[in-house]
């Protein structure tokens, strides 16, 4: 569904992406992990059209996304830190995105209800806590039933209850057969959600494997431990 082909990207002298090749198909929920500055965010931004690669192509459903914007109808994106114009209210933000998207199907307002945003619809974004802002971002990402979900540190800043609600929602969408890309530092959180891991380092993809294979290779039953084991063995070599 999504294919990165020989993507290179540098910011000045820093090489952020180095000949990245990657295929992601629907039905998989992938965790994009790696140390800080490994190129995760750049990769995601490339997919969203926020960063234009120096070379290579990104294909969405077989079509290059270069100079296209309509493909983003199929993507829901939840940024790591959402910041919105100070004086807009939650209601207005949601209305605005709806007006931009003009969905044909009825919107999915499950998160809106579960997060109880309705009671806060008139609150200005300036007055919201970080957690509430994340709730708004999450709500927007899932609202239009997109085929692809890109979630950048989705649970960071959310209280345990909201975090749980969001996880439930992710699992629900996963079961609906969507392609979900999650970046996270909290490997322990990923266990129930993902079925594949993409590990990046220094702008390169070190490996992309299914979770079951990783677990059986390492003999660990938790993702965090499995990854730690892989990293250690890599360091010894």
């Amino acid at each position, binding site marked *: 569904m999504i294919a990165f082909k020989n993507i290179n990207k540098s910011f000045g002298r820093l090489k952020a992406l180095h000949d990245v090749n990657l295929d992601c198909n629907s039905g998989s929920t992938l965790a994009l992990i790696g140390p800080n500055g490994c190129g995760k965010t750049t990769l995601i931004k490339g997919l*969203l059209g926020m960063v234009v690669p120096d070379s290579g192509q990104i294909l969405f459903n077989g079509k290059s996304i270069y100079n296209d914007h309509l493909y*983003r109808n199929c993507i829901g994106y939840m*940024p790591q830190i959402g910041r919105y*114009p100070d004086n807009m209210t939650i209601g207005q933000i949601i209305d605005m995105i709806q*007006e931009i998207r003009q969905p044909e199907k009825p919107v999915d307002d499950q998160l809106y209800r579960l997060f109880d945003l309705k009671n806060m619809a008139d609150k200005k974004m300036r007055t919201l806590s970080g957690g509430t802002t994340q709730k708004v971002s999450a709500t927007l990402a899932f609202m239009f039933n997109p085929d692809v979900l890109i979630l950048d540190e989705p649970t960071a800043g959310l209280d345990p209850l909201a975090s749980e609600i969001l996880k439930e929602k992710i699992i629900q969408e996963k079961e609906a057969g969507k392609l979900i890309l999650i970046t996270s530092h909290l490997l322990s959180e990923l266990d129930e959600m993902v079925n594949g891991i993409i590990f990046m380092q220094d702008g390169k993809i070190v490996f992309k494997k299914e979770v079951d294979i990783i677990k059986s290779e390492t003999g660990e039953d938790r993702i965090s431990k499995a990854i730690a084991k892989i990293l250690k063995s890599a360091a010894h070599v």
Partner: protein
Amino acid sequence: MYRIMKYVMLDILKNKILLFYTLLLAILSWSVFSLEDNATKGLLTLLNMVLLTVPLIAVIFSAIYVYNCGEFIELLVSQPIKRTKIYISIFTGLSISLLLAFMVGAGIPILIFAFNVSGLHLIIAGIFSTMVFTALAFLSASLTRDKAKGLGIAILIWLFFALLFDGIILFLVFQFAEYPIEKMMIGISVLSPIDLSRILVLLELDVSAMMGYTGAIFKEFFGTFTGRLFTILLLILWTIIPFLIAMFRFRKKDL
């Protein structure tokens, strides 16, 4: 496009600084007109305001807004909408809000106390001061990611056109006093949007004839209908070109 613009405006119109700006303009204009028994003199006092305050507020407010919008713009870019549309929407939303502030604060008193051709020209000058410096703010914001630097550039642009540019002209006038430099000066004054706005209003207040030979040339150039059209056209270019450069840079920019 209209959809984003609407929400941008809803956001800015609730902004306290903008409300303060409107109030400031209103207080200045009303007090100028009620203290001066002579509407023309009031207009001339307001001309200074239009040439000084309006561009300053427009350039700073817009630059800050564009920087503060960074993440919001990212969110919009992740939506199925063209980048150019996003940028144009924010620009129009921002400049319409600033124009509204100008019209409510200064435009209404001008229309009430000096409803004549000069007053209308002053309003036109104010409108363009706002638009041009909003566009220049976008330009400076597009030049650097660093908010402090971008604001610095914006203020420098304002300082240059409000003060330094005329200082340079004055210097040139004295340096080349022996030469017929009138035509050259027309060419130079076209390079400053503030000077263009000022000349637009001045010619309407009919002081050009007193400038002697100089004035005759200026009047011949700026004073006719074609000249006035040309001045306005230049001001439109002064709005469009910086904005287009900014948009071109934004289109290619990595967020």
